[in-house]
């Protein structure tokens, strides 16, 4: 299968602008500035069918078109590089190995929405990727791809690399904007949507790193080429981060619509010998689980949704029969509780209560009725929060209980795991 985003992932020099240029980099940008009006770029991306790779799969071109053209306010573009969803580690590799691809994508997207200031918001722990991006931005300035009058086109753009403080919530677009403004990273109610009132109250587009990295490729090689990958509604390729009980974990780029089994078994080599597959988290830790019989589900937005889960950010976490599902649920809820921003009541209080209950069951102190209480609390969080973090905590929890209720019941009754796991559990 053709690698496009990862075409140069194995070249240790690819991060340097000379290498990027030699490999055909920065050819999309001059073409755009010369031949495309901003609206034409939006049209092109709309036609390509490119969908957001940050989790929600929202059509990128459509998002850009929401930016009001007549607004006198400045417009902003933010590249979301906060990548903190457990299991997800694709943006990091893109930024480390091919930072100029991301920068070029940012410049084109900024041009499309006529922003003159763009930001890359990188999670604080990403010291190395941030350094790579900084260097790329510097090189791009030096060569006139950024700054005033880019390539003589009259278009100006400044790009700032901003590192966050290391909070999962700052990947959520409105919290990202609050954080970028210097405030606490708390999510905000929508509407207004960022495209209308985002950073400093001005129209703002937030796109994921991988989404933006696709843009120069689409410009260079065309819509038809892009659509030759993936499915009708989910065109293109996608980087999947494969982790968990798998022989060969890692990032794999495949066409959207590739069956899950191909990634797990062919690319990942399947679960360790002697183990059997128990469940799969298909799209990052906030998505409901799939069962082994669903392993042939094609990995595109529609098919995964049809199977009862979500493609999300494309982080596939494989769980084999050695894992206790109560423990799994506990690890997940502990994460979400820790990362709740604390702004809205259901998420702040609900995740904390869930954590207490699930930990109690895991610790062998569960009580009869706890499982239904958990589900009831989940119901009081789901759909009642400001941002989807609350839902993200609930979805895997509910799903695990629904699929593996017997393990919870066993825990409560016998004060120990039904599954005797042999993994070192941290």
């Amino acid at each position, binding site marked *: 299968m053709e690698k496009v985003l990862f075409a140069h992932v194995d070249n240790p020099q690819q991060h340097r602008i000379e290498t990027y240029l030699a490999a055909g980099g920065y050819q999309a940008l001059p073409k755009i500035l010369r031949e495309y009006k901003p609206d034409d770029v939006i049209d092109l991306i709309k036609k390509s069918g490119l969908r957001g790779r940050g989790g929600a799969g929202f059509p990128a071109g459509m998002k850009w078109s929401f930016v009001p053209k007549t607004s006198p306010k400045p417009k902003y573009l933010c590249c979301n590089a906060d990548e903190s969803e457990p299991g997800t580690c694709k943006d990091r590799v893109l930024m480390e190995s091919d930072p100029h691809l991301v920068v070029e994508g940012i410049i084109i997207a900024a041009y499309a929405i006529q922003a003159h200031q763009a930001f890359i918001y990188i999670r604080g722990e990403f010291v190395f990727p941030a350094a790579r991006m900084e260097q790329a931005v510097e090189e791009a300035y030096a060569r006139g791809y950024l700054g005033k009058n880019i390539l003589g086109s009259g278009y100006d753009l400044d790009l700032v690399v901003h590192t966050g403080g290391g*909070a999962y919530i700052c990947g959520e677009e409105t919290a990202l904007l609050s954080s970028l403004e210097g405030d*606490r990273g708390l999510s*905000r*109610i929508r509407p207004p949507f960022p495209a209308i009132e985002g950073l400093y109250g001005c129209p703002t587009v937030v796109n994921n790193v991988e989404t933006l990295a696709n843009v120069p490729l689409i410009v260079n090689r065309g819509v038809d080429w892009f659509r030759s990958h993936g499915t009708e509604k989910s065109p293109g390729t996608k980087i999947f981060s494969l982790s968990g009980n798998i022989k060969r974990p890692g990032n794999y780029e495949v066409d959207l619509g590739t069956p899950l089994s191909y990634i797990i078994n062919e690319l990942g080599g399947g679960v360790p010998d002697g183990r059997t597959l128990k469940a799969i988290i298909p799209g990052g830790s906030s998505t409901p689980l799939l069962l082994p019989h669903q392993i042939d589900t094609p990995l595109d937005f529609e098919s995964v949704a049809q199977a009862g889960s979500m493609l999300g950010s494309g982080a596939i976490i494989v769980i084999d029969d050695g894992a206790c599902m109560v423990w799994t649920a506990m690890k997940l809820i502990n994460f979400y*509780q*820790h*990362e*709740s*921003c*604390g*702004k*809205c*009541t*259901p998420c*702040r*209080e*609900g*995740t*904390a*209560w869930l954590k*207490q209950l699930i930990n109690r069951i895991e610790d062998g102190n569960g*009580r009869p009725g706890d499982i239904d*209480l958990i589900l009831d609390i989940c*119901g*009081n969080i789901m*759909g*009642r*929060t*400001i941002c989807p973090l609350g839902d993200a905590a609930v979805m895997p929890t509910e799903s695990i209980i629904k699929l593996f209720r017997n393990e919870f019941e066993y825990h409560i009754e016998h004060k120990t795991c039904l599954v005797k796991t042999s993994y070192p559990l941290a």
Partner: protein
Amino acid sequence: MAENGGNTVTLTIDGRQVTVPKGTTVLEAAQSIGIDIPTFCWHPKLDSIGACRMCLVDIEKMPKPAVSCATEVAQGMVVSTTSDRIVAARKGVLEFLLLNHPLDCPTCDKGGECDLQDITFKYGTDKSRFAFPKLRIIDEHTKTTFDDKRIGPEIIRNMNRCVTCFKCVRFNKEIAGEYDLGAYQRANHTVIDAAPGEQVDNIYSGNVVEICPVGALTNTDWRYKVRVWLTKQADSISPHDADGQNIKLWYDHRRIFRATSRRNDAVDEGWICDLARYGYQFIDSPDRLMSPLIKRQGRQVAATWAEALELVARRFRDIRDKKGSVCIAGLSGGNQSAETMALFNRFFRTVLRSNSVDYRLDYIDLKDGEITEAYNCLYTAPFQIAELEQADAALVFASNFIKEHPIVNLRLRKAVRKSKARLFTANPVETKSADISVDELIYRPDTETAFVVALLHALIDQRLYKNCPDGRAMELQSRLSPSSLTEAAGICGIEVERISSLARQLASAQNPFILAGDYLTASTQRYQIGNALYNLANLLGVPDGKAIILASHADSIGAERVGLRPALSADLAGRLAEAWKEPIPDSTGLNTSQIFRAILDEEIDAVMILGANPAMRYPDGPFVNAALDKLDFLVVADLFETATTAKADVVFPLAGWAEQDGSFVNLEGRQQRFQRALPPKAEIKTGLEIIREIAETMGEPLAGDDAALRNETERLVSSWVRRPRVMDKFYDVKPAPPVGHEGYPYRLLVGNDLHHVGYLTEHCPSLIRFTREPYVELSPSLAARLGVDEAALVRVESTTGRLVLPVRISEQFDGDVVFIPNNFAAVEVNTLVSRDGGGWVKIERLDE
């Protein structure tokens, strides 16, 4: 029925149709027809953040419940606030909020007025499914749990009770522009706390206590004193500033327990400053004067009312009849009720037959012959606080705004934040408005006139003036002194380009405002600056009500309107004579400084002072004290013994504003009534009683009861006429030459501390917690030159006096300007100042 096209929207809530303006939230639409939706994080004056999720409603065609506080109405919307899903959602949110809540209602001071209590009662359940120990985080530093941490001089935080609505933090940031309070940590470990190394001590700090929906923020003032349901409320007005903050006093038969806001959108929008909130406390001070005093053989001793009244009546009659009525003068503080001032005025003019009455006791009036028209016109301008919201530019000049006019300041902040008004400030020191100012100009002390003249030149040079033919402008320019922009700018020490740019921005504004304050009022150049400002407003075409010199006291404008000033307009004199059915005496009345001068010249023998302390506050200590000492007969009515009562032959214990009904007229000319909360204690009498009883004892009682007086005052206040500003009139401006101050290099500003006003607030324990003692405030650079650190003792000396004070170093001060508050009886700061503008001092370090 209203259709989409217009500015209204019609929707259905719980089966009832309602039509509301576009942009209304679903919550407010529901409220407008009496449908109750519970809320925690919503506040009518704060931006909605949709955080608590208590206000969820179902809206047809929306898959998820929506937050009504942040959802705008739409035409044809169908809303349910009572669906099963919503009832369950509310129970869910309440259950969450109560998980770790201590339920210590019996000992919580919010009990009885707590939103969490009320909403739980109405919408919650009485059972908890939470079977864990309640979360109690141990404070790293104090090793205590979250109970009761003092985060400001008055504010105590109990984090266990917090519902994390962020109202407190949002108020600070959105409304007050203060950052001394914040939210820290994350998830359910979120804490509300003072900023690191800081205290929550901004002048609006008490508002966060009031808007906290639970008992997480309480104040010392109210804690553990009374249960709210045992108190009664009186509508009142803060007596400490001219803005007219509407407050409510909470009291029982013994005492007042607190003051809270009483939202009036025309004035304060429900926010009050700490002086309004805690400034009632002097009423309950144990130091109050409790009985009349009479001076016998040089010592004041307690006397009965009969003795004291008899003595005053006899002496007044003697002096009036033997020496002449021009030998008696009356002075009243600017925060007596309008009714009291009206009666005082009448007593002086009809019984004592003297026109020498005044309320302007805290600035030096000028020599005779000064043209005061322009100044008076601006001082009484028909300004409306709420109109500031429509401003697109404002110049705040010669005013430490936040301090002098806390409410006007908030409205200006709102104009900047919400309507993007461009604010410019020009002052001798930095103010706290830097964060919202486009430019903050600092002129050299005493160069107010030069500053305005520079602006006038800049307007004329650039031909930016309105409503004025070129010839007129040229002619005006030729009569200005200093005579050019460069010269004037040089004098005030501001770059020419900044003044030119200010002129351009004011001239290009559609709706500019010009507001001036106490640095102007206190200046000996007051009338010259007034002339210059008048010209400025006219050249810019600023309408009458939008250029104003703001009054300083709660009832300054009331005093103007009831005529408590020596010279009266013909109209007012006529109406007063008609009301009193007696002619106004035709002698010339003297103003405050003329009165003191006349005492020294032995032309005035007797003075009556009502609720004022000129011995400490009049900005020429040596002069005023010499005059008061020289007086033959001094009568003072006040709440406390003061430097002034100490000199009196007779002292009357005076009731405070909360002990009587009355009204104040704020700087807009808005008359606002206040109600009595408590009767005056035993021997204390109100100003009205004192005046009436003196008149009666003199055998010349004042006709009419209090109701008649109230009507008369209302009529005077409401029918008061003023000559409007004449838009094409200009005044000559000739600033007096600066006074020499050889050997005294530092300019001393004297005024109110940030947390005090006048000489009464020293008797308010809560305010004392903010500032306990006097100090001299100076710039870091001056401190360095003097070699002093914070709190070091220095000697401050002028030609007339010297004081020893601790140093306070302030970033807001630059160079050689220093400040000393005159709110503390311990130091009579006015001994350092003299009447010809000599406010210059030298400072020396005291070596231990």
